[in-house]
């Protein structure tokens, strides 16, 4: 992309493209409300944003499925998407950019050089480290190599999706590629994790927008996720919560409870331990979210979500056994084996006790006989 655009303020760019101030304020207010900021903050944000220069963004894709990018591009508000690409200067994204091959790589080098220390790196996908990182290469270089080089001049790194944030599906046991989250590899840069598989489009854009507006890393939780989007569990905000509180649970996907829209806890809903904005922001332009369509939350925005047992086993059950979750069959086998060992040990202990008893009886009798003699 042309270099001059990066030097323009966002306001100048919007004016040139004929986007009204009013429409921009409306967009910012919507964003502000999403982030649970007071309504007036939207106007202030709009002013700040208009004055800000568009930051250069380098979007790196590693071991990923492009679902995160799909999520982002399937935003139901095309004008908003448009704005996003006007608010930032997306200088490198090997999926979206028109350029390919050496020219694409050159664009990255150029953006890094021109904005050294100021550009934003967005990472999508986990980074394979096994066997020298050979499982993910672009232009003959490994992901580790590209990431390390690109991160050097970054102002901050935004990890989009659970793979870059926590390792995600490539990280799942047995993790053959030695996949790592970005935070494992880069220690000296601010990292913002926008987890989810994929993350909610508005959460991605909102996080980027907040960084552009304030130039600062937002308040993060212990997993480095922006608290504004990841402050509550799905369960906390779930419209089915009253059924949980009433003890009304769907037991199968087609029972009366399921038809009545009761709580999906017993069907394995991970809502209680999953921090995300699904229950409030929802998906597809606020249409719905998994639980609303009758499926339990998978907990996709949490570290290791793939390895926490079956998606369909309740949170209060064990996460071991043949199917990755405790079943009565497993329980019977496990308990039976333990019980059988217990019986064997008990038989030993009793035999020992009997033996000791015999010895002591003999001792006493011997003592008695000696005494009598």
């Amino acid at each position, binding site marked *: 992309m042309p270099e001059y655009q990066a030097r323009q303020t966002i306001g100048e760019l919007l004016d040139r493209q004929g986007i009204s101030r009013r429409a921009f304020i409306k967009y910012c207010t919507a964003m502000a409300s999403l982030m649970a900021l007071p309504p007036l903050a939207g106007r202030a944000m709009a002013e700040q944003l208009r004055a800000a220069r568009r930051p250069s963004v380098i979007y790196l894709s590693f071991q990923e499925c492009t679902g995160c990018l799909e999520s982002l591009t399937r935003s139901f508000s095309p004008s908003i998407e448009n704005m996003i690409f006007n608010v930032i200067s997306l200088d490198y994204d090997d999926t979206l950019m028109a350029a390919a091959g050496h020219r694409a790589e050159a664009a990255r080098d150029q953006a890094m050089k021109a904005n050294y220390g100021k550009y934003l790196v967005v990472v999508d996908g986990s980074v394979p480290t096994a066997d020298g990182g050979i499982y993910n290469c672009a232009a003959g270089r490994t992901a580790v190599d590209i990431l390390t080089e690109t991160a050097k001049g970054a102002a901050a790194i935004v990890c989009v999706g659970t793979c870059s944030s926590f390792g995600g599906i490539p990280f799942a046991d047995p993790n053959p590629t030695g996949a790592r989250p970005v935070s494992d590899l880069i220690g000296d840069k601010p990292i913002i994790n926008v987890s989810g598989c994929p993350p909610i489009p508005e959460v991605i854009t909102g996080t980027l927008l907040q960084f552009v507006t304030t130039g600062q890393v937002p308040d993060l939780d212990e997993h480095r996720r922006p608290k504004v989007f990841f402050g509550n569990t799905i369960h906390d905000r779930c419209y089915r919560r009253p059924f949980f509180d009433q003890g009304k649970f769907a037991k199968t996907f087609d029972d009366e409870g399921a038809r009545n829209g009761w709580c999906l806890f*017993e069907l394995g809903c991970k809502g209680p331990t999953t921090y995300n904005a699904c229950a409030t922001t929802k998906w597809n332009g606020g249409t719905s979210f998994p639980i609303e369509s009758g499926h339990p939350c998978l907990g996709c925005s949490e570290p290791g979500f793939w390895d926490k047992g079956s998606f369909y086993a309740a949170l209060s*059950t064990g996460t071991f056994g043949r199917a990755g979750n*405790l079943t009565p069959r497993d329980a019977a086998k496990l308990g039976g084996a333990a019980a059988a060992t217990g019986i064997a040990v008990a038989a030993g202990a009793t035999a020992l006790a009997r033996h000791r008893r015999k010895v002591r009886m003999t001792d006493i009798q011997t003592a008695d006989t000696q005494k009598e003699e």
Partner: protein
Amino acid sequence: MDLLQFARGPALKFALIVFCFGVLWRLTAVFLLRHERTLSEPRHPVFRALMGGLLAAGSRSAPHREFIRRTGYSEALGYSYHIGLFVVVLAFGPHIAFLKSLFGVSWPALPNNLVTVIAALTLTLMLAVLLRRLTHRVLRLLSNFDDYFSWFITALVIVTGLMASTHFGAPYEQLLAWHILSFDALLVWFPFGKLMHAFYIFPSRAINGYALARKGASV
């Protein structure tokens, strides 16, 4: 692996293994001991003695009328917190899901708020039980580490469970992890302490009752 995963995974597995192993060890070792032969002429035929044993298994659930005046308070206290424990363990949705994963059967749950209130009441009653144990001259003399530790670990499970269900003091997944961990600890302790009375109570009543009933003695 986070704490919750540890609690639900390896810790729970270990606890269940120790529980089954220990319970069977303890029960078997007792029943494998010498069985005294009874040679005296029974007062009643075996069948009546067996009925006496069964009767004792049930009837000792309530004190004989003659004793109520002296033991009414401890009976009432004991009953109420045991009932509380049963309700909390058996009627709370997530617990039912856990039991279903073990035994494959499930049943309807009570409203969570109700269970939470009952759990709080149960905890209060358990405090009363502890207070009584600490102050009553007989109980203070009889009590040993087992009594206090078994109380502690049971109370701990209730406290962490209450905290989890009311989201009090820490993020839910941590509270849940502590709750499950404390339950794991209870399972591990179970076979080694007085919690075993859950397994002994009916055999003990029935077998002692049978031994008494064959003499025609009162059960």
